[in-house]
């Protein structure tokens, strides 16, 4: 039992140890980290939004099929980042709901994400997107979305969250997307009931529900109001 050399190295170790402890604690203070309130940081507004006309929608789900096809390369309604819900037995106009991501100005999903997987992508017009490699599956973004039928989708095949990225990243479609490009749902909708815009829509309870029906639509006998 040689005590003397151990005491000496223990003392040294304590010095190094406490210095490290202080150093690490100070270090965590810095890069926009957990000690500071995230909400102090303003998240820039998105440069693109989807407007929908729920009265024009024919419930064909082509937008959902296009969304999952261009993003995942396969057809799966559960992976679509836009959801159309409908009840065959309810009357117009409450029979169909169109649930697209609103690219909120103050996005709860971005704030909820602990790993910054869901963030405002400054390279793509500040669209709120999920960097899927960083997603840990905590699902806080899904819970944070305040709209019924959360606009953030759980991808149960690839095990991560995903959401409307205005087609910024569509590996299975040759067209460019993002705020300066094309959106799959807009491109396929046979009723032209989805429209892309760069100006921030006015907030309302009906969620960017606009009237996209013109006089030609009216000539077929369907209402334009």
């Amino acid at each position, binding site marked *: 039992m040689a005590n003397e050399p151990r005491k000496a190295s223990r003392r040294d170790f304590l010095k190094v140890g406490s210095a490290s402890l202080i150093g690490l604690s100070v270090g965590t203070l810095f890069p926009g980290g957990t000690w500071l309130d995230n909400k102090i940081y303003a998240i820039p507004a998105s440069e693109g939004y989807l407007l929908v006309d729920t009265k024009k929608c024919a419930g064909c789900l082509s937008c959902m*099929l296009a969304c999952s*096809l261009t993003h995942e390369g*396969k057809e799966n309604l559960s992976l679509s980042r836009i959801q159309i*819900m409908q009840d065959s*037995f309810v009357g117009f106009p409450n029979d169909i709901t169109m649930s697209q991501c609103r690219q909120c100005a103050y996005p709860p999903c971005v704030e909820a994400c602990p790993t910054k997987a869901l963030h405002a992508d400054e390279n793509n017009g500040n669209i709120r997107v999920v960097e899927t490699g960083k997603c840990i599956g905590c699902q806080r973004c899904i819970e944070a979305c305040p709209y019924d039928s959360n606009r953030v989708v759980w991808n149960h095949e690839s095990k991560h969250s995903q959401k409307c990225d205005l087609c910024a990243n569509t590996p299975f479609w040759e067209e460019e997307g993002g705020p300066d490009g094309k959106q799959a749902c807009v491109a396929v909708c046979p009723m032209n009931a989805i429209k892309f815009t760069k100006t921030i829509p006015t907030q309302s309870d009906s969620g960017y529900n606009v009237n996209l029906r013109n006089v030609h639509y009216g000539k077929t*006998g369907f209402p334009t109001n």
Partner: protein
Amino acid sequence: MKGYMGKILRVNLTDRSISTIDTKQYEQWGGGHGMGSAIFWDLVKDKTISAFDSRNVVTLMTSPLVGTLAPSAASRTEVQGIGPQAYPYEWFTRSNVGGRFAPMLKYAGWDGIVVEGKADSPVWLDIRNQDVKIRDASSLWGMDTYETQQEIWSDVNNGLDYGSWNQVGFGRDGGRSTQRPAVIAIGQAGENLSRIACLIHDAGNAAGQGGFGGVFGSKNLKAISVIGTGNVEVADPNALMQARIWMKEVHGYNVDEPLRESPVDNFSLYGTITRRPGFGALLLEVTEPSRPKGCVGCYMNCRKKTSTAYGNEASCVEAIFYTSDGPENANKATDLLQKYGINVYGILQHGYLRDLYKMGVMGPGKQIHSELPFEQYGKIEFAEALTKAIAYREDIGADLAEGLPRAIEKWGRLEDIESGLITLPNWGYNDHYDPRLEVEWSYGSILGDRDINEHCLNWSVHWLPLVCNAIDQEPIISAEDMVKTIASKLVIFDDPMMLDYSAEGIYSEAKAKMIYWHRHYTRFWKQSVLYCDWAWPFFVNANVPDFKGFTPEGEPKFFNAVTGSNITFEEGMEIGRKIWNLDRAIWILQGRHRDQEKFAGYVYDVPTSAPYALTAFENGKWVYSDCLDRSLDRQKFEDWKTMYYKLEGWDPSSGWPKRSTLNELGLGNVADELASKGKLGSE
């Protein structure tokens, strides 16, 4: 090939066992009808059984395009089996239903469902992805189709509301969906084994003809529900996407800036020319705030949904079932059919019953006793009483539930069918388009198992001139241009005379080629690949400056983009020929002979007296003829049949396929079976 899920669900209701069939065994048939016929051939040894025999097998098949972005090809289910409706023989028959059932079945991981046997008590099939259960339906039995579906929706979601994401499978990655389960159900008509009961899905989608509602009822099967969260694989997603956009931008009706729109406002019928959204109501106007409604993946969306919800998703004939009491009551009457699950074509000619009443033959204490409120005929009350009677087999409903031809036979009034007082030209089916004139329809029907309901040529050669005339508009395309356009697209032939509906033209060799083309196209491209009848084929497209529609480029384009195959249009036609011959063999085993392929008497004996527009080559030029004062010539029709059988490679003395034809199609085993029953055509 991609697009297939790899497994077909096989349910035996007798022993309540669930197993799977490997789709690969049947992939050569394409999907839909081809697979259904092949499976029926394999599973039903004795093809002479009746429709309500528990050994009858019902197949509900999808195709590789179902559930994908292929336009108007994503939503259809082909239903097949021995059907109780046809008269006097219960032919092996087909029906088809749109909506969302087929895609949901694909997302659950299934290419189709095969139903065998009979359950000893009412059951319903609960499919959630790969989890399949046969469940007790005693609480559902007796409900109408709307109530049944809503009950099942509630059950599958554990009583919770819809409107957000619901857990479908087990655990975080078990799959979630915002969608309601897709349910096919029978109503009281099917429960009471009506021959004119149908399968209903959502509010207005139906597998209407054939009597499959009764077949389900005979199996004690109340409903099939499916919810899926899986994928349909697509071989070339980019090609599919670009093709879909091509379809919309080049060939679709532009809702906001149409190239051609109806000169008359709120005139659905013009949609037969432009295919604009919501044209399914045809003769009816939009009378209340509504929206167009389409099946999954449609690029046209022909149905609609109303603010009252009456008549939701109704389309075409079921919407015009009972229009004499105002638009709202018309919708309510239609809804009665949907809820009871009654095929509109089983009772469309209810005017005949009123005629019998007026003749003093039917009524309280009359020769045909009935206490239906005939004095209120034309009002909704009569429709309510009539549909209820049929659903519950009360009053004359007991006879009508057997279908009009059998009811008429029971009433001893078969002469009414022969005289045309009631028009049931082929196999007891309601007439659809004039059988004396539009022969691709009537010939195809009598050579097959039912009223064909294949509008391929009909939209162009009949509706376009009819609609333009109706609003006093010069037909937007001349008869000659139309015929030439269509002929160039009738690939494998390209003979304009095929479109000649003149008095001589309808017996020609060219007409034989037309029917030959039509049977094969529909058997493969429409009923196996499941391109919707109201969108495919498209010959004459008013949304394109030169009127050239997307047939025959479109059919293989989408099929190949999804499956990764490189099949040609012609190769598809050849598969269609194979399927048509297999169906022919099944009917022959059921007892078919050319001598049975005859129309009701009026088709031959009663000339037409109202104008009926059709393309015709008369006096050296192409015109849209009125086809007045024409009926079918018995002998010329028999001679035409001989010509047609020869073209198909069938023995003209019997109408039975020859071994050489069957061998050429790879159906040698079918030839063996026919030979063993002494029903093989002589060489």
